């Protein structure tokens, strides 16, 4: 290089420009991640087989459930700490067999299984099977769900 000062200026500008390139690239990657997350959300719904309905996790309490995730409801869905439950919730506030959801006569029913801390439907403690529809809330222990149509 004939002029050392020009060369140094090029290096100086390149150094700052590289910092901005890193920033831009990370921003691009973040934007791509966001788009991918958005499309993956719809993909899950179309892939799932037709279900009776869904439970949407509103509050995961002390469990490892992800708030906002959808759990398909089966004709007989049991909730409890026992590993044989359909939905296994491992926290101290939940009994081994806590509650179950039944699909009978085109309607969903929630039944408490004599749990210690009780089952709440629309924030009311239930003592006998209660019919629920999309939009109803279900609370077992410290975990809250919302019912959603298929």
């Amino acid at each position, binding site marked *: 290089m004939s002029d050392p000062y020009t060369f140094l200026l090029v290096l100086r500008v390149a*150094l*700052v420009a*590289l910092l*901005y390139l*890193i920033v831009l690239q990370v921003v691009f990657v*973040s934007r791509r991640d966001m788009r991918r997350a958005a499309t993956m959300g719809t993909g899950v719904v179309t892939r799932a087989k037709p279900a009776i309905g869904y439970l949407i996790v509103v509050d995961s309490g002390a469990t*490892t459930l992800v708030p906002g995730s959808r759990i398909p409801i089966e004709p007989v869905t049991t909730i409890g700490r026992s590993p044989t439950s359909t939905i296994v919730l491992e926290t101290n506030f939940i009994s081994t067999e806590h509650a179950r959801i039944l699909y009978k006569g085109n309607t969903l029913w929630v039944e408490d299984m004599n749990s210690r801390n009780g089952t709440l439907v629309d924030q009311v403690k239930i003592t006998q099977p209660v019919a629920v529809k999309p939009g109803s809330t279900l609370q077992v222990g410290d975990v809250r769900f919302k019912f959603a149509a298929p």
Partner: protein
Amino acid sequence: MPGHRSYRWTELWLLLFPSLFLIVGLWTLLSVPLILSGSQDKVGTLPPLDSFTPALGLIAVLLLAHIALIIIAPDADQTILPIAGTLSSIGVLMALRLGPSLGDPSLGIRQLIWVIAGLVLCVLTVRFTRDLRWVRNYKYTWAAVGIALVAFTLVRARSFSTNAPSRDVLSIGPGGLSFQPSELLKICLVIFFAGYLSENREMLKEAHFQVWKFKLPPLKHLGPLLAMLGIALLIFVGVRELGLAILIFGLFLSMLYVASERPLYIVTSIALFVFGAFVAYHLFSYARERVGLVTNAFGQATGAGYQIVQGLVAFGTGGVLGTGFGLGHPCIVPACTTDFVASSFGEEFGFAGVLALIALFMLLVYRGMHVAVGARGSFNQLLAVGLTAVFGLQTLVILAGNLKLLPLTGVPLPFVAYGGSSVIANFIIIGLLLRLSQSTA
């Protein structure tokens, strides 16, 4: 996605930029003395390969960390390692450049060794926290370790002259290998807070008692709040570490807010903090001196305000594009490699460089919060929030201190400031964040 192995191509692509940055930076650094010594004809030519050893060494270690992550955590966040790599590249380059000005040519190599050790520990952290439950189950042990570290620093501080700069009071160990327990204390506290808050989350959310029209947190929950404020004040009064006190209290507040989702706690705590600060201002001359340096730095520019004023002059000298890497005189400012590394960087890289640096820290915080949003369970979420807040709060406190917006405190700028324990602690945090993002994917 099971059955489909990720080779982390994005991460590899992003690592290209810090690598180029290291090489261009080192080339600049090698060319500057040639011009200054008059041998200008040699400038454009490529310097001998072995003078690039520090840059190539760091690039190699970054690539090894990348390969290790492909094996042990293929689905972890791919931007966090490149961001941390870029920031620590800036740190190594700054140490390489500032060392000779301070008459300590090995400073850069020492920082490089710390970064390499940090990257190794980062990978080990990812490897050995595969089941995060053990971290969670021992939360009281972590709290005890944290309290032991505080107690140790308090005892050490007593044995020192209380006029010593805050930074030196907290270092232990033989001369060159000083270790600051406060760096590890941050990680211990975040784990403990995450464990405590995730267990008491429901109570914190619901309970309150009412005084006239105001809903206040119940008294038993004010206990931990007051205890944290007490510890922060104790650190401030006992060790005179204002930065650490602000950091711990800010950390607790951010995590409490995320856990409870209630601004009420924040308002209450800030009111308590203002009250505590007011009392401290009137009780301790040390606090008054610190505040006096912000309100009237130029009035004592040759005395106590020398450092902060020279730091501002350095930022001003840099202007928009900076004096050029290696072409400024940043070491007129005392502590130009540690507390005032931001003003050294600002002088030589200018406003443009400082903006890019701040953007990098913002992206690091953004990716950390991204990990938190995707994490499973409230413990993991709170852990990610807290670890991210450590970076955010440290950057905020030290940059505001350098720019004379807050009282100056001895908090290191993450990855950029010279210091072994800080670099190592930060890389352990990066390792935990990578692990948290792997277990969500």
